[in-house]
């Protein structure tokens, strides 16, 4: 893009672009990319690794749809630099299914209609996966808190919360829907 003359007054002239060979481990697979260091993780995932499941939203940290997991923790890929994440374990929505079998969260979201346009879904799925990996029997409040950084602009959040509850129930097996309580089986 050629800056317009008015923009050029305030934007520094074209600079030598600092590129680096960066090693990223995404969904268990190691990639080497030679990219400008100012490209965000979101841009590298989508444009250099063709992993377009992670979505561009606000790109300013205000919506959560670009959420990915780094070493199991949800972070915003639109504000992360690949050069700072070398050899860390990155998981995107493409990494949720195992050998073609969808993750229980994905099944529950589909069954309960917890997606409308679907744009926020990849970020919510990985944020919810991080929660359930660390806290397999979350309360409703804990689910709400874990998803407090992900906006959905189609509809309410009720089906989303129900889908996470259902997935947790299926993954652990002893959550009582009628009472909203975890059973007293072993480990509960």
């Amino acid at each position, binding site marked *: 893009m050629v800056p317009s003359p008015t923009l050029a007054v305030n934007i520094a002239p074209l600079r030598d672009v600092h590129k*680096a060979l960066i090693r990223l481990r995404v969904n268990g697979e190691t990639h080497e990319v030679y990219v400008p260091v100012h490209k965000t993780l979101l841009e590298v995932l989508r444009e250099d690794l063709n992993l377009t499941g992670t979505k561009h939203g606000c790109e300013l*940290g205000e919506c959560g749809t670009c959420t990915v997991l780094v070493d199991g923790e949800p972070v915003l890929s639109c*504000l992360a630099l690949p050069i700072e994440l070398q050899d860390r374990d990155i998981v995107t929505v493409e990494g949720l299914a195992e050998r073609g079998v969808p993750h229980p969260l994905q099944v529950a979201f589909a069954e309960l209609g917890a997606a409308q346009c679907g744009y926020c879904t990849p970020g919510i799925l990985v944020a919810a996966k991080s929660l359930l990996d660390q806290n397999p029997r979350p309360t409703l409040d804990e689910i709400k808190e874990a998803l*407090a950084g992900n906006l959905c602009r189609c509809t309410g959040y009720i089906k989303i919360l129900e889908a996470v509850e259902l997935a947790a129930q299926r993954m652990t097996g002893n959550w009582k829907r009628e009472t909203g309580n975890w059973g007293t089986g072993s480990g509960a």
Partner: protein
Amino acid sequence: MRLPAFRYLAPKTLAEASRMIADAGPDGMLVSGGTDLFPNMKRLQFDPRILVGLRHLSELLGVSGDPHRGMRIGAATPLHQLGLHPAIRARYPALATAAGSVATPQIRRMGTLGGNLCVDTRCNYYNQSYEWRRAIGFCMKRDGDVCLVAPGSPRCVAVSSSDTAPAMMALQATVVLSGPDGERTLPVAALYHDDGMAYLAKRPEEILTAILLPPVDGLRNTYWKLRRRGSFDFPILGVAASLRLDGDGTCTDARIVLGAVASRPVEAIEAEKLLLGQRLTSDLIEEAAMAAYRPAKPLDNTDLTLAYRKRMARVFVARALRELANLP
């Protein structure tokens, strides 16, 4: 929106980072979590040619000490960890609450305590894209020469928007700054100027390395935050309060610090004086809240209305003090 191009430097030690940022001069900026810097860079509020990354420096990581002896928190410690730290939650709840209420779960995992203490001041006329700012004629904080909130103002009135800064002031914490000439410590209160542009007393080549919390020694403390939504939002009012009460309930120490009412956190000194040497009753708390409300002078440059934000300063000071005094 994309980031403007920059060179990224990854120092291995604090000494190396100090040299790099000093060598970079006005072209350089420090980055740790990046959750404040990168959105601002995308909007061309900052346009550094060189970024010096701090997040991997071991000197800036980790929480040590305990509430009896005081604690040291590395400046690059993620906010998320502070919100969960058992000793901080138990004894420095003002800090745990403030750190745990910043932005979103994702941002708290990326953003650091040092970054939140140094977070850029905010304003409706400033936190906008380059094109938006150009269309309205730019303000003095970036690219222009007038204040669009208060056109007669000789200085920028952008708002201090840190949650942890008022909490740290109420806890009487100090910061450690490391520069080319060595280290110095400052009370957190002395880290800030009431100027939306030159809001930090930290020199550009200095690196905030750690925050020191004094021994808790019976200091009750809390933090109350006002914002439109329960998540995401910066504070449009923060109230951090701390009290020491002796055996019969007499107040021997009081700090009340308001966030997001000026370009720096504001200590409500008159309100504190009213509490000292007194037992906290509902009437006294109302009187102190009224005294704390007077120095709160929010301007019409953040979310929600001016009158409401000012009124809530009184309400939140009263609620914070009632909580600390165990009054219903």
